[in-house]
């Protein structure tokens, strides 16, 4: 197994009086796309938010690239090299596409070669470069959210349900873009409800239930084992295609 860029050891998270994560153990290998699957309310989004420091872990440790980031603030975690695309995309609707991208570039300037590559992945962004992000369609906003996360090379991308609410044609194109991204060696932790996308993209997988990781392994193994899918997810992947 490749070395782990991210490791969660016994992470608990409380939100107010609610105990959401009950001792998460998770490993994200470097250079791979790891899928985080689970039913609604399993704790997937909370896991990503805890990694980003948006909610503090009440117990346990988060190690990133060998460094304990459990108690770091969100800006420090972002500066350490983790990019985050939240479920609601986090687009600044009143800012233009260009301004959204510039904010994600640390020194305020975007490398022209990288921008060209991003435009190759998501041509709509070039077309709507000077328009307010709020005027974009749902799919285009998702493209912008992902483009913003990759505007500069990052060690790890955390992406929360990028295909949610998108039309099937857009989902297929999004999957192609992720494949392209994977080919650059990017490390990605992807929360997904769309099992077809999970099967096509995932190298490894972690399945969550009730705030715990209940399965870890290769994505290909889970994709082949319909009994395990039934047990872990309640439905077989084939039923979702």
């Amino acid at each position, binding site marked *: 197994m490749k070395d782990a860029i991210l490791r969660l050891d016994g992470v608990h998270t409380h939100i107010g009086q609610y105990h959401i994560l009950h001792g998460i153990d998770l490993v994200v290998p470097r250079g791979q796309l790891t899928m985080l699957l689970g039913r609604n309310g399993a704790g997937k989004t909370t896991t990503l938010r805890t990694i980003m420091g948006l909610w503090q872990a009440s117990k346990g440790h988060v190690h990133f690239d060998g460094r304990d980031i459990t108690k770091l603030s*969100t*800006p420090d975690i972002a500066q350490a090299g983790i990019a985050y695309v939240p479920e609601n995309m986090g687009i600044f609707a009143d800012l233009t596409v260009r301004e959204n991208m510039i904010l994600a570039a640390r020194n305020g300037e975007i490398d022209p070669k990288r921008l060209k590559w991003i435009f*190759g992945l998501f*041509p709509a962004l070039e077309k*709507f470069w000077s328009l307010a992000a709020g005027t974009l369609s749902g799919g285009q906003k998702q493209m912008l959210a992902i483009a913003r996360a990759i505007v500069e090379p990052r060690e790890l991308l955390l992406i929360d349900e990028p295909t949610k609410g998108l039309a099937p044609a857009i989902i297929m194109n999004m999957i*192609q873009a992720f494949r392209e991204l994977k080919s650059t060696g990017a490390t990605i932790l992807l929360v997904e409800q769309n099992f077809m996308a999970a099967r096509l993209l995932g190298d490894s997988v972690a399945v969550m239930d009730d705030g715990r990781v209940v399965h870890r392994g290769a994505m290909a193994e889970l994709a082949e084992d319909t009994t395990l899918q039934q047990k872990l997810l309640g439905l077989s992947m084939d039923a979702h295609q």
Partner: protein
Amino acid sequence: MTAVAATTETVSLPKVKTDWLPALLVPILAVAALPLVGSFSTWVTLTVAALAMGMMIFLMASGLTLVFGLMDVLNFGHGVFISFGAYVSLMVLGPLAGWVESPNIWLNIGVLLACIVVAMLVTGALGYAFERVVIRPVYGQHLKQILITMGGMIVAEQMIHVIWGASPIPLRLPEGLRGAIVVGEAAMEKYRVIAVVLGLLVFGLMHLLLNRTKIGLLIRAGVENAEMVEALGYRIRRLFVGVFIAGSALAGLGGVLWAFYRQTLTAGMGMEVNVLIFIVIIIGGLGSIGGCFVGALLVALVANYTGFLAPKLALGSSILLMVLILLWRPQGLYPVAKR
């Protein structure tokens, strides 16, 4: 290379909708008032007075709307900076009394600018202390914010009484800024014209800052989604402290202009104008600088025209305007996207 493009979603170019209607309300209101006022010269005088008042309210309110937009902080003590800004000008007017009475217009403008600079420095520093001592312990707790910031304002008022005394202090405009410019039959007070110019200048600078600089981008983004700005690696708390200091300094600037406008200093002047400021930022849309600007002008125009046409209604005119605007647009004229 793979492209995420081959869908109907990217075919049509979305149209950017610029919402001009709220901004157009200002000229529409002014023109509509002309036949009601009757005399053109009186209308000009009233309109210039209203624009001056609107600019001053905008200066005082702009910081508060950003503070609320950026950090969800309800600062009911914002009037502290207005009162202090006004009283601090006494520290300048004393030593520069000769400049105040000088017939040289440049010395007169110089003393006004000196008052403004000193007031902004003092209220900016006061804002820094206020944020650390009063605001910081109550982040995210609206009820406590209201109580503690109102308490802070009461304490500050008493401090003014201790330092400068409880009696109202008359304030004389510098010699060259007194009187009016007469164009045709319309008289426009010189000081009000200067207030309009200063207000427009500050609005222009704020517009440039917010739209042409990275720090402005961060402020606009932070008003919309502070959490995402942090997730991009920026420390929103530091940005907030900076905005709070700038907002306090702007309130200090507004306080100086407001004091010369009223020509009297009272410790309660900040608290009195606080209500008007809250009306303006609610009308404009919480967190919106453009909305704050339009809201301030509308409130001032309505107050001045109503004061002339139906003086008994003048006191309630701002409230009435707010009710009408909120019935039309419940989020204010220019709501910020997240709200």
